């Protein structure tokens, strides 16, 4: 494979960051890399808003009698959920790393629809403004799940404003997914067959399928909820002949696949990290790729496991339980394949790999606790308790956020052209790992003991575990602040990065300069080898 990248010392090369200056060049850009940075900035801001709510919640839970008024606490957990799910987790990896990396990874100059990409960011911001205005005007207290009839008839808070924010943000997600699907189908470089795609791309493809097909159902659900709240026609109101459980079916038809929108990109990052830092091709490439798509498909068929205690038919519940076990299999396959990749590899412990280790451990625990919830008789006891909260935080925070941080660190040199300080990064990763487990492991125990979720005050016997959890949360919060600081510092003052500091395989590292020029490549790449070809090739494939 030929690489004709100019020697880095010969003259100043413009890259996507230096190609143009001024706020207009950023706010009206169609360069997928700049759009990714626009998203990175806004998503990080929302993460800290949602995180601030979490801190206040944990402070409240230090004492069994609470600290804040009940209404305040109810708004805190609602807004924490809404912001974290819709404005952080759903867009996070796809809109930042996906946007940045999918074109170079497949050898393309940009995504298929660059202007729609920019539009999708503006739509995201519009949705965010609506959601933030709901907060500023007093908040919402329905829970992020907006269950009727409380949300449609009884709540006195800004439900419609918040629902509109989510509705609008949903279109951003749909457009991003659409863009990815078309790009991956039509814009692969010569020789980049589907079987040679990096698993990062496969993972985002599967994610995009879900984004495109599931999100519209959320849109219509929120639309109906809004109309119901205004017109009171009765679609979810039992006094008028409506069925509140219908809302739950419609809501979870999107929201269950949504959790796969949230985790598949994290798994996509994992494949890249583990292959690179084991210096070995991913074991079972085909199985991992297939598993991503299988998770996407099966994920549409399990929504009823959120309704085991809601009055759903027991036979329907049985079917949903069975398929929920089925969907665990491809996830397990991935974990086993990543572990097997490390066998007889050459493993180094840079920060991205530390996050990968964390992901494997914590996602395994989170995923296994999902089996507890799929087991109907146990779910009856632990649903709507802290067990569920611990489960989803293990997969979302222990899984997804770790993958996100791992990915940010791994591709930081590519994105910024600089290196981050490795010791600080390792320290932060450790603090986050410890803080995370201390926060959420006690919650499994609290859940089985019977502490319900969304409780502003709780029974005395739950006190000690709650204090432990809050202690962990303060460590975790501190841990998240550290990367903010050193990454911001490194962006400006970090040492310049070589072309491929990790000696990784992949078009984005080997054939695209660091940082990339606006159109990603100096010469159009032609692909002649499979993905992760660490063992093959007669000559060293990276420069520097």
């Amino acid at each position, binding site marked *: 494979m030929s690489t004709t990248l100019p020697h880095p010392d010969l003259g100043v090369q413009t890259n996507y960051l230096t190609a143009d200056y001024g706020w207009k060049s950023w706010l009206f850009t169609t360069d997928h890399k700049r759009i990714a940075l626009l998203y990175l900035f806004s998503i990080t801001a929302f993460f800290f808003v949602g995180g601030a709510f979490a801190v206040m919640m944990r402070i409240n839970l230090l004492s069994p009698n609470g600290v804040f008024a009940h209404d305040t606490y109810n708004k805190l957990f609602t807004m924490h959920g809404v912001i974290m799910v819709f404005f952080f987790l759903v867009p996070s990896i796809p809109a930042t790393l996906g946007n940045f990396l999918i074109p170079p990874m497949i050898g393309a100059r940009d995504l298929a629809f*660059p202007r729609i990409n920019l539009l999708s960011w503006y739509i995201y911001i519009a949705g965010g403004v609506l959601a933030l205005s709901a907060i500023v005007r007093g908040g919402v207290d329905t829970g992020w799940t907006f269950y009727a009839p409380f949300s449609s008839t009884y709540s006195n808070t800004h439900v419609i404003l918040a629902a509109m924010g989510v509705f609008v943000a949903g279109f951003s997600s749909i457009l991003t997914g659409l863009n990815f699907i*078309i790009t991956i189908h*039509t814009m692969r470089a010569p020789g980049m067959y589907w079987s040679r795609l990096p698993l990062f791309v496969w993972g985002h493809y599967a994610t995009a399928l879900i984004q495109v097909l599931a999100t*519209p159902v959320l*849109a219509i659900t929120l639309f109906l909820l809004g*109309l119901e709240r205004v017109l009171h026609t009765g*679609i979810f109101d039992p006094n008028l*002949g409506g069925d509140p459980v219908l809302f739950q079916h419609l809501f979870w038809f999107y929201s269950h696949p949504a959790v796969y929108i949230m985790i598949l990109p994290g798994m996509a990052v994992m494949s890249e990290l583990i292959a690179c830092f084991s210096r070995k091709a991913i074991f079972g490439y085909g199985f991992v790729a297939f598993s991503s798509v299988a998770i996407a498909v099966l994920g549409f068929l399990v929504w009823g496991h959120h309704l085991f205690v809601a009055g759903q038919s027991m036979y329907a519940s049985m079917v949903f339980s069975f398929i929920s076990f089925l969907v665990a299999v491809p996830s397990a396959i991935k974990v086993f394949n990543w572990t097997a990749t490390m066998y007889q590899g050459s493993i180094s412990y840079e920060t991205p790999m530390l996050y990968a280790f964390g992901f494997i451990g914590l996602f395994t625990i989170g995923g296994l606790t999902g089996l507890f919830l799929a087991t109907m008789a146990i779910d009856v006891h632990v649903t709507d308790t802290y067990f569920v909260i611990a489960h989803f935080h293990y997969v979302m925070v222990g899984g997804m956020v770790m993958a996100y941080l791992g990915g940010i660190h791994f591709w930081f040199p590519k994105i910024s052209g600089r290196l981050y300080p490795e010791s600080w990064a390792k320290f932060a990763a450790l603090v986050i790992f410890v803080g995370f487990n201390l926060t959420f492991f006690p919650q499994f125990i609290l859940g089985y003991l019977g502490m319900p979720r969304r409780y502003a005050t709780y029974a005395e016997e739950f006190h000690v575990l709650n204090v432990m959890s809050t202690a962990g949360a303060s460590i975790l919060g501190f841990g998240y602040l550290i990367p903010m600081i050193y990454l911001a510092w490194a962006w400006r003052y970090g040492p310049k990065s070589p072309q491929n500091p990790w000696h990784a395989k992949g078009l984005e590292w080997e054939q695209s300069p660091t940082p990339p020029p606006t159109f990603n490549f100096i010469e159009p790449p032609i692909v002649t080898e499979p993905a992760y070809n660490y063992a093959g090739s007669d000559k060293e494939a990276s420069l520097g």
Partner: protein
Amino acid sequence: MAESDVALQRPSELRHHFDDVVQQREASTLGMWAFLATEVLFFGGMFCAYTIYRSAYHGAFESTSQFMNVTIGGINTGVLICSSLTMALAVRAAQLGQKKPLIWLLILTLVLGGVFLGLKGVEYHEKYVEHHVPGPGFRYAEAQYAHQAELLFFLYFAMTGLHALHMIVGAGLITTLIVMAARNRFSAGWYTPVDMIGLYWHFVDIVWIFLFPLLYLIGHTK
């Protein structure tokens, strides 16, 4: 380097990130079909709610069926199918590079769409006069079905209203096409927007093909 030479040979409508017009057209077409898939899911949620309530309240449904104006609905169906025909012919005209027929056919499509929306307005007005619009002014003669009827009428308005909204958007898009065509933007070599918006228009038509029998025909006794 080679880029500048290639630029001379690149057609003006070829965007910078595509290798050739074939790839660009493939991307546009696949993109529009993917978007239409999302629309199917969007409408699907409401069709689902409608089906559930219709089977739960079949008595009320039969009662409300008599108030569906099958005449207007039927004429509208014919109008919309014709507009799909004129749209398809417009795409054909674009394919053949025939500017005048293209513009006339697009205008005809727009007019037929306008007729549809006008008749819909008449229908909605009829419902308004009969106090069948859900909300504070709602009244239903058969008192025992009042709540259920309101729910069913709500679904009627929500589904046909969402459809009408899509038609209005479509009308706006067709207007844009007319302006673009008048300014000679299309040729036999490139007419992608006409093609894509044509697909969208056909989709809106198909949604109506489902709405009409479900809302108007089934259960209608008059």
